[in-house]
């Protein structure tokens, strides 16, 4: 795997790589230049900003947790089992990635809205309403972000050497023990990478959230929604909030990469 590590990389590859870095970094530099640093603290500590910040963290963490609980079993099924309609299920899990989020929001309304397929009986029986509630924002973020976890973990499960699992089983380990002590450690870097991607996607979610859960301060108005609204009137606040959003995710992703993926690749 590391045989070519000492080789000098081809110039074309380096140039293209550098262009990519500039392409990705330049908009962020633009944000940094646009920022009004003197008012940054007051912009970030306004009630609207603090509400949005808190809500974004809560909702994105919930979405990541739910994706792990419900996405991991599906990823395992897709990687390890054969069942009728598997291709359809696999396509279905990726669909939210290609669906425009606003359309995803409308689709969620049809399913979980107060008069939706499942939303109506739930509302009639329990009085629980997802729309205009924080639970709805979590639902929207989970819908959009979970595919990232499923495809990352499924790929890792498919790529790992199944013989380790066979050996563990032959030595008397039960299925759960094998999964916990052999499979999870072997795919841990992908699991963390998938969870990080899922979390980042959930953190930036806009379209499905505003369409399905609405835009209520302190309840469903997450950071991206607050940024979008601020952009129309108060650009300083919008840039400050965007910087907070970018800053938080950047720190977490760098930390994760160093801890989990860095050990593998560098």
């Amino acid at each position: 795997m590391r045989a070519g590590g000492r080789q000098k990389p081809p110039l074309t590859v380096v140039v293209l790589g550098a262009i990519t870095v500039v392409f990705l970094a330049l908009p962020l530099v633009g944000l940094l230049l646009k920022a009004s640093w003197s008012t940054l603290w007051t912009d970030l500590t306004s009630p609207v900003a603090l509400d949005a910040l808190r809500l974004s963290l809560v909702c994105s963490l919930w979405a990541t947790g739910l994706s792990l609980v419900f996405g991991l079993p599906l990823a395992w099924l897709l990687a390890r089992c054969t069942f009728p309609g598997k291709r359809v299920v696999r396509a279905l899990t990726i669909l939210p990635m290609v669906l425009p989020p606003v359309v995803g929001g409308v689709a969620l309304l049809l399913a979980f809205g107060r008069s939706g397929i499942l939303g109506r009986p739930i509302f009639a029986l329990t009085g629980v309403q997802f729309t205009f509630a924080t639970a709805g924002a979590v639902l929207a973020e989970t819908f959009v972000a979970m595919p990232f976890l499923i495809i990352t973990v499924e790929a890792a499960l498919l790529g790992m050497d199944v013989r380790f699992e066979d050996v563990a089983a032959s030595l008397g380990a039960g299925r759960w023990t094998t999964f916990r002590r052999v499979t999870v450690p072997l795919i841990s870097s992908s699991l963390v990478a998938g969870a990080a991607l899922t979390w980042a996607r959930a953190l930036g979610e806009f379209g499905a959230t505003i369409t399905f859960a609405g835009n209520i301060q302190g309840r469903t108005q997450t950071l991206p929604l607050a940024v979008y609204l601020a952009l129309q009137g108060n650009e300083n606040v919008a840039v400050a909030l965007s910087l907070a959003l970018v800053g938080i995710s950047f720190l977490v992703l760098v930390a994760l990469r160093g801890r989990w993926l860095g050990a593998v690749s560098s």
Partner: protein
Amino acid sequence: MTIDSRSRPRIGSAGLGVIALLSALSLIVAACSSSSTSAPTSTTPPLSGAITVSAASSLSKVFTSLATSFEAVHHGTSLRFNFGSSGALATQIVEGAPSDVFAAAAAAPMAEVQAAGDLAESPTTFARNSLEIVVKPGNPLGIHGLGDLPRVHVVALCVLTAPCGANAAEVLTRARVNLLPTGVTRGPDVDATLAQVTTGDADAAIVYVTNAATVGTTAVGVAIPKSQNAVTSYPIAVLRTTSDPQLARAWMAYVLGPVGVRALLQAHFLPPS
């Protein structure tokens, strides 16, 4: 106050026709006496090319249908639209987004663009609009006016930076109605706000009369009395950076002309003055 989707108090269609005719006549007279351009006559060189029109989302239906007839009259021309909240559009234009004509749902966003020196000429008012409440079909919560809104679970309003949001705030203040922040969801523009009632779970929304006229069976309008209502004017202007001033002016003249006036009145806009 009436609660009726179809027959809400409004000028009858005959009256509408008379107004349309009068406005059309007055505009034709004005056009003949004041300017030599305008009017698609065969003597002027044929228009061609494409322009981008940034317009308030409350204009989306009228402008889209007007564009179809404009393009049919002027073969080879094509209009692209950028619909959004007037506040957001003004920001885009000032930030340098290429656009040829700007039509706003209030004076303030147009003034912002003018202050930035981005207008080719002074804006002209071409329509006015006022607000209306829309509720779920059949009005299950029995909403008869602004005073009933505080007891509703969630009311959809436009963001405060959009004219429909600013006007709704003014109307609510005037009616001394106080909505809790947790009972208000804010749509980025008037179409998104209306959709919260027609496809979403909001129980009521405050939108333009012109939006309320388009809901069909998906919602019901509840009139806001004149004494409480706010009227907004719609200014239009060609932008300084236009790539095709001739086509931009032709489109503006078309909106201000008889066809435009008729379409706007049919969509329940009020005449400019």
